């Protein structure tokens, strides 16, 4: 069943390309309808989720048995929420109205291709399969930014994104091969590697492998100082692509940290937990401070992503610091980190779509060009304020559920780092309130006299995201229980 979620979008992507020119308007409806299939698959998986076991709904097929490579997919408490997030974000990004520059077939084919690939990354339970999907995700995003990006620098930003993350994935590949060389019998099966932990703890090899995969994931996450590809990519990317980039692709980095660095090299991870936590706190503060200096709406949101990914990594580092703090603290930190991945995907996804709505109307991201939009567009302002408050961690919204658990857990593991990291939530409060103030309050500049509120199609994309942000903020049980099956296992060490 999980395989369907990957294969069907891929097949329909090819079909979309084959649509005759005169029927090209069918590309969008076809793509949107197709994107509902992964959502259905997620719903069924969620309904059938078995709280007493780890990997489940596993589907496996021989691929290259002589090298121990197989096609294996499955979910657990970590990947299922991310698969759900991916499926949802792709659907809303395609629903969101966007000028495809006269190439609807190519655009929606790329989108469906990228959806299949992204689902593949989170579903793969074979390292080679994982890597193939991982690398192909770069290709899809490269084309989205390069072809449909705006600004003169779109191509350049796309290339920068591509080369940067490709170098990261080379490091990742080396690390994966390193792990592989220690398996006996040789296998790329993630289930087996996690089960048997083949890489001997404490040795130089383990360190090298950890550093290699760590660089790969740190670029993708991104962690400071490997984040410089992110702001230009976001600024030049079209709004739906930004949503996917922030909401889905960044999660691949944090997912990798958990699935590979933490689960496959636990002892090494434990040794490096403190430096990793320090990097996370640096990212939290650096991302927040630099975001505060932004005058460009999209770059501001991009830097807050650096800040939020810092929260995730802080929680992950605390969860993997076996031996420090209590099991309860580590477990809650991990749950918080995974909830943050989902919350950030929804919230930042919404913020980027809204930036797109604002850009479509005003043709600029410069905050000081706007003002007083609250009166002219109450719906736009309302959803944007909700997303901004969610992003700054207001209770009742998804971000708080995540950040509270991350900090409550990390305080028991790395008390000082958690206390310093907490300053990040004050800075994000200041910068988001300033953003709201500049966009929505004060006088409406005369030239925005005919400013329009959100159209129905935009609401179709945004309301589900906003609603989920509230639902997770108020009744997060359904999400936390699934994730907890995973966190408790990891925290036990």
């Amino acid at each position, binding site marked *: 069943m999980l395989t369907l979620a990957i294969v069907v979008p891929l097949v329909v992507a090819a079909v979309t390309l084959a649509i005759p020119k005169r029927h090209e308007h069918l590309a969008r409806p076809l793509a949107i309808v197709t994107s509902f299939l992964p959502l259905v698959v997620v719903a069924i998986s969620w309904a059938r989720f078995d709280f007493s076991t780890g990997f489940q709904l596993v589907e496996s097929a021989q691929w290259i048995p002589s090298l121990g490579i197989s096609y294996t997919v499955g979910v657990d408490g970590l990947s299922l929420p991310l698969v759900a997030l991916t499926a949802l974000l792709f659907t809303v990004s395609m629903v969101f109205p966007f000028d495809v520059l006269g190439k609807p077939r190519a655009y929606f084919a790329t989108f469906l291709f990228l959806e299949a690939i992204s689902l593949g990354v989170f579903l793969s339970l074979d390292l080679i399969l994982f890597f193939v999907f991982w690398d192909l995700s770069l290709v899809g995003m490269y084309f989205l930014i390069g072809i449909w990006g705006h600004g003169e620098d779109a191509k350049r930003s796309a290339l920068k994104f591509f080369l940067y993350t490709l170098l990261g994935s080379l490091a990742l590949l080396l690390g994966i*091969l390193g792990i592989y060389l220690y398996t006996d019998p040789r296998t790329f099966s993630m289930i087996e590697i996690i089960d048997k932990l083949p890489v001997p703890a404490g040795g130089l090899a383990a360190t090298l492998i950890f550093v290699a995969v760590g660089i790969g994931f740190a670029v993708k996450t991104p962690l400071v100082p490997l984040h410089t590809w992110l702001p230009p990519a976001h600024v030049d990317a079209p709004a739906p692509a930004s949503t996917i980039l922030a909401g889905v692709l960044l999660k691949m980095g944090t997912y990798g940290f958990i699935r590979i660095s933490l689960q496959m090299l636990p002892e090494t991870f434990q040794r490096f937990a403190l430096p990793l936590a320090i990097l996370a706190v640096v990212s939290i503060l650096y991302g927040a*401070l630099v975001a505060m200096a932004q005058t460009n709406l999209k770059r501001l949101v991009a830097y807050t992503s650096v800040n939020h990914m810092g929260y995730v990594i802080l929680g992950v580092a605390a969860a993997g610091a076996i031996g420090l703090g209590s099991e309860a603290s580590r477990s809650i930190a991990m749950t918080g980190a995974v909830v943050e991945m989902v919350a950030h995907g929804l919230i930042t996804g919404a913020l980027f779509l809204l930036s797109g709505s604002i850009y479509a109307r005003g043709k600029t991201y410069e905050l000081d060009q706007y003002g007083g939009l609250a009166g002219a567009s109450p719906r736009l302002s309302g959803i944007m304020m909700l997303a901004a408050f969610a992003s700054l961690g207001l209770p009742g919204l998804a971000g708080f559920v995540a950040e509270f658990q991350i900090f409550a857990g990390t305080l028991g593991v790395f008390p000082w780092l958690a206390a310093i990291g907490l300053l990040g939530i004050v800075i994000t409060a200041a910068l988001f309130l300033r953003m709201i103030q500049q966009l929505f309050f*004060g006088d409406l500049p005369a030239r925005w006299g005919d400013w329009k509120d959100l159209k129905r199609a935009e609401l179709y994309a945004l309301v589900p995201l906003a609603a989920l942000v509230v639902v997770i903020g108020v009744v997060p049980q359904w999400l936390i229980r699934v994730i907890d099956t995973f966190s408790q296992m990891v925290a036990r060490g």
Partner: protein
Amino acid sequence: MVWLPVLTPLIGGAIILALRRSQMAARVASVLVMVATVAAAALVASLEATGTWSWGGQLDLAVSVTGFGRTMVVLVPVIATAVIGFAATNSEDDRSIVKLLVALTWFVAAMELLVIAADFLTLLIGWELVGAASWVLIGHEWRDPQRPRSAREAFVTTRFGDLGIYVAAGAIFAATGSLRYDDLAAVSPGWLAIIAGGLVLAAAAKSAQVPFSPWLFSAMAGPTPVSALLHSATMVAAGAYILIRLQPTLSAVGWFSPVVIGIGLTTALAGGMVTLAQQDLKKALAGSTSAQYGLMLIAVGAGFTAAAAGQLTAHALFKSLLFLTAGVALHASGTLDLSKLRLGSALPRVAVLFGIGALALAAVPPLGAAFTKEAVLAGAFHAGIWVGLGTAAAGLLSTLYAARLHMLAYGPGPTRDVHTPPRRGEMVALGGLAALTLLLGVLWLPGGDAILERAAEGAILSPTRAETILSLALVVVGLTAVAVAWRRGRLVTLGMPARTRAFIAGWWGIPTAARVLIVDPVSRLGKWLFIADRNVLARIADSVAAFAEYTSRVLKRLVERGIDGVVWGIGGATIQGAEMSRLADDRGVDGTVEGVASGIGEAGKQSRRTQTGMSYHYYTAMMIGLVVAIAVATLWR
């Protein structure tokens, strides 16, 4: 059941919003919702209800209506009823009145959650939500660019304090695996000190204590009903409230009492002088709010939480009364400048109501506020002679500024026509608060101590005869001094140089210091980091990218010289892993593979031709990857 005080205003707010097309209905509904909330609160208070709501995993939201919470849970909607009643009759044509009423109603929901919280997660939720409500309400008139800015200052300052609750929550969780107040007793001394530190920080910020006090000035940008409800009676009370609730466990930490007393006493004295020097009626009331919460903190630090709880209740009633009457003054005369008001002759009935509030603030018996303040003074003397004397001085200051405010705002003055005299609904709201202020005088009856002890589940100390005489004497001295200054026409300037007065009235320069020492450096740091980000970090990354581009160009040249087929062959072979293993076994390039390889190479050329722009980078870069991969794989074999 126990959630009713939260759910009633929460759902009620939605109903008011749904009625927005009919302003009249929305106004009436808002008052009814508050009356219903009072009833719900009284019910759960009498039942001492408790409850939990699981968030899954290790998170439970626990609530209970116990101790001082029983009083507080009723006090909040009682004051809100008066304030919302005032607001609902006050603004006439305003379309935004519905938004104001809904926000006030939802604020009550958040505040009630804070009051009934029985664990740190629930507390934090309520604590941050009232802060957000405060932001919305201060910036209510958002078209004026200055008000949202003030709202942001207030929110960010108090949020810094919220970090203390995050820390406290993390600490109790680390120590016990639970977030409940009940488990505080089981916490080890080290963690307990951290929890106490976090809570003192949070309480000081929320209750506008030194050095956080100036945020309350920013908060005065909000409409008067907002100031009356949030920024005097309820939200600001949260800091003192949580310390009253948790003092029994926190006092085990050695520094807790002296630090809390120190903060309270400093604020009471500094804030008292701020109020005395202020020339803006609302800001003066804000300064006195800080000072009065300072008195409560002194009592908490001294260990007499019932005295603090009594003072909190009395203050909530008379200060919301004073703020609302300040709103009447603003409406009537269009200004809050104390040198221009003197509305006593124009609005004699309102002046009487303000006078009742001012007498309570001045602690004149037989008002209840005088009783609680004497109890605070007795507690302070119990903590130490200097604490007692300091508190007595703070008490004198409050008598001085209360009398001064009354004379300047509602003292006898010219009879003139006022713009907008108060409406009947407003007078009813004011009258209700004044009646409750007077009613609190029952505390003077025998058994007043016992009432407070039972209500707060804490201790109170009866003042000695000397302490009673001292406080009465100070009241007399204060009132006399103001009368003399009034006669001499010095009540506005106090005979002080204007600059000194402005310095004190502006919270002793704290806002400037905060800007110079914290706000500006932080935003400058952000700008510097951004410059570094663009010019250093990104440059390094760019040069890496340039190197990769260079390599790819070199490779491309090699490709064009005919190695194309071979490289692509190897590349293709890796993807076709099966072939690769055969390749390794045969220790050579066998014909079949070569055929496949050149085929793939051809395809590569074709596809490259069809791609536009820089996509060749992808292929070349991909090749580097594969070549490296193969090299590694074969070397390690």
